[in-house]
């Protein structure tokens, strides 16, 4: 045990005490902060925009007033981004081709953002709107204009049929919904945002804790192999202890990261009055699933590292492993909505995925069947020695093997060697 500890301490210090580690430690939250800031900025709009001009051709005279009022209502509520409508009534249809050519020119020169041509029967409910623009990718703008036209047209139809638009709106209002969460002891109003984001946050923290440092472990193993220091080490410590020490050292690095990010998130959440989202029970679950999950994965990574002479070579072998981890990330949205669905339950019992899937499900629904929690945890726990045993065998052979990197098949053959 003493040697495992010594190896672990060296690996921990040599990993944490590097500029790369410090930078990655600082960069990640900064990056997350920047992303949050940008998305918040987008919600608020990007500040005052110059007014955008839109022309409409073939506007029925009956619609002109409704259109104007729809646009002016919009402009009142969006002073940062005015939309100015120029109407060309049916009366101008004589020189329509010339008009359209002129408008095309205006759009290209930038005077107009877009122009639209109304079908003749737009008021009867069949015809539609033809939207001409240079910036087709700004579909949101097109949709806004469409909505404003719809509003005007629908209003017109109501009035034409003797209905009050105001009354229709009131009558067709949808039934309001309030979701109350009963999964915790204390009933609380569910927060739509938190329902999705908190489980994702936990899953991501798990992903990050387990994988953020996997690169370090891979590098540390490959360094010992390619610098040939391994032969010196192996006349002092057994391959298994060396591997165990390295894994423990990196596990400590992972815990350091999780502790720092966890604390930072908690402080952020508290400052924003959301600390109730991160409860201590979840923290306990997190650590319980993190430790075996980490051991399992880093055994695989140590085995892969031992078989390769450079980081580049390891990419091929890392790919299948990455696939396994990406599955929960790709399916999180479905699982968060159906934490007790077949998909989520099945993935919970595939040991390499267990930690991420279970923490996601537990965050989404704290009252998961106890049976599933215990069974998935035990399965994970029991698979750790099996994975470590297999990894140690691969490590023992691989770490002294130079030359061409082995394929998966050859690695599997090492498992059978004595």
């Amino acid at each position, binding site marked *: 045990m003493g*040697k495992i500890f010594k190896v672990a301490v060296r690996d921990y210090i040599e990993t944490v005490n590097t500029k790369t580690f410090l930078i990655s430690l600082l960069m990640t939250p900064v990056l997350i902060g920047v992303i949050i800031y940008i998305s918040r900025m987008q919600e608020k709009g990007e500040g005052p925009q110059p007014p955008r001009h839109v022309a409409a051709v073939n506007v029925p005279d009956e619609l002109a007033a409704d259109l104007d009022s729809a646009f002016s209502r919009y402009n009142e509520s969006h002073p940062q981004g005015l939309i100015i409508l120029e109407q060309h009534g049916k009366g101008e249809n004589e020189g329509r081709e010339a008009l359209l050519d002129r408008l095309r020119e205006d759009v290209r020169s930038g005077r107009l953002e877009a122009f639209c041509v109304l079908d003749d029967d737009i008021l009867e409910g069949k015809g539609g709107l033809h939207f001409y623009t240079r910036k087709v990718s700004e579909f949101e703008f097109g949709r806004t204009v469409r909505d404003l036209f719809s509003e005007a047209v629908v209003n017109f139809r109501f009035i034409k049929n003797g209905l009050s638009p105001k009354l229709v709106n009131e009558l067709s209002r949808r039934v309001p919904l309030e979701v109350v969460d009963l999964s915790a002891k204390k009933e609380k109003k569910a927060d739509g945002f938190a329902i999705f984001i908190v489980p994702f946050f936990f899953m991501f923290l798990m992903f990050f804790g387990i994988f953020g440092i996997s690169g370090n472990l891979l590098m540390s193993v490959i360094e010992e192999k390619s*610098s040939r220091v391994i*032969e*010196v*080490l*192996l*006349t*002092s410590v057994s391959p298994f202890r060396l591997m165990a020490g390295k894994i423990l050292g990196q596990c400590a690095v992972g815990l350091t990261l999780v502790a720092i990010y966890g604390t930072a998130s908690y402080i952020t959440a508290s400052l924003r009055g959301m600390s109730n989202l991160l409860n201590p029970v979840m923290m306990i679950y997190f650590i319980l699933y993190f430790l075996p999950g980490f051991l399992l994965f880093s055994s695989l990574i140590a085995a892969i590292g031992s078989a390769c002479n450079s980081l580049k070579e390891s990419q091929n072998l890392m790919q299948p492993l990455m696939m396994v981890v990406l599955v929960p990330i790709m399916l999180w949205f479905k699982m968060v909505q159906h934490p007790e669905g077949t998909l989520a339950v099945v993935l919970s019992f595939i040991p390499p995925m267990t930690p991420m899937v279970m923490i996601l499900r537990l965050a989404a629904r704290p009252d998961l069947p106890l049976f599933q929690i215990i069974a998935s945890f035990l399965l994970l726990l029991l698979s750790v020695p099996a994975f470590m045993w297999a990894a140690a065998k691969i490590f023992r052979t691989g770490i*002294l093997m130079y030359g061409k990197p082995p394929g998966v098949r050859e690695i599997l053959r090492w498992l059978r060697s004595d």
Partner: protein
Amino acid sequence: MTDCALSLEKISKSFGDVRAVDSLSARLPAGCIYGFLGPNGAGKTTTIRMITDIIHPDSGEIVILGETAIERVWHRIGYMPEERGLYRKMKVRKILSYLGALKGMKGEALSRAISRWLEELGLADKADNKVEALSRGMQQKLQFIATVINDPELVILDEPFSGLDPINLDLIQGIMTRLREAGRTVIFSTHMMEQAEKLCDYILLVNRGRKICDGTLDEIRERYRTNQVVVELEGDTGFVGELPLVKGSKKDGRSLEITLQDGADQQELLMALAGRARVNAFQVKVPSLHEIFVHLVGESNG
């Protein structure tokens, strides 16, 4: 302490179809410098790696410091592999204290040993430098320190002299001699015969994975003695070829290389020569290890 530091009993190792080491046996007495000689590809490194349990022999038995399980004597062994390497980003002192600690040393004793060795090998002012900042020769010396930091009873050095300049070569050889005087056993492999001749008490010569000969340096020289003398005589030397003791002679500049009849005594020849001419020089020719090596390797390849 056992009298035998290391014994190899018919160890063999094949890589694919190549028999790298073929039924090699040897006994290494404790307290000597043991040279492990052979041309490139003879199986020296493979044998050393089997001794250090880096690779397993296909068959045979290795007893090291009285144990068959090497992990029991790790702390009594120092090993310098042929392919050198240390953590490039670590500082000199930290590496030594890590490797020393893995060998079971601790605290004050360890840090004293580190300081002493760094001082001795002229690396004291580099203690806080990273390995990658050292020159190749310095890294080599650092690797040597890492090998002997735990004052091992058995020091195993694979090609210890490659890449060393003459000054460092003398330094390392001096330390090897001193280790022997302190009762340690040193095994090293080399294909540089002059170094082996200067240092070794015992020699094991291998070629193509097989032992060609082994024994003390004197024994081997005696075994391959050619019974030749080199003399310098004044005057006519024509009579030499007619002496009954002489099998043949060859003139080489001012000197004459004389091959004696089998079993003939060199002292008798000297008397016979002195009776007939003035002898300015008389030297019994001792075969150099280099000559024996070339002769034996050539023979076993032929």
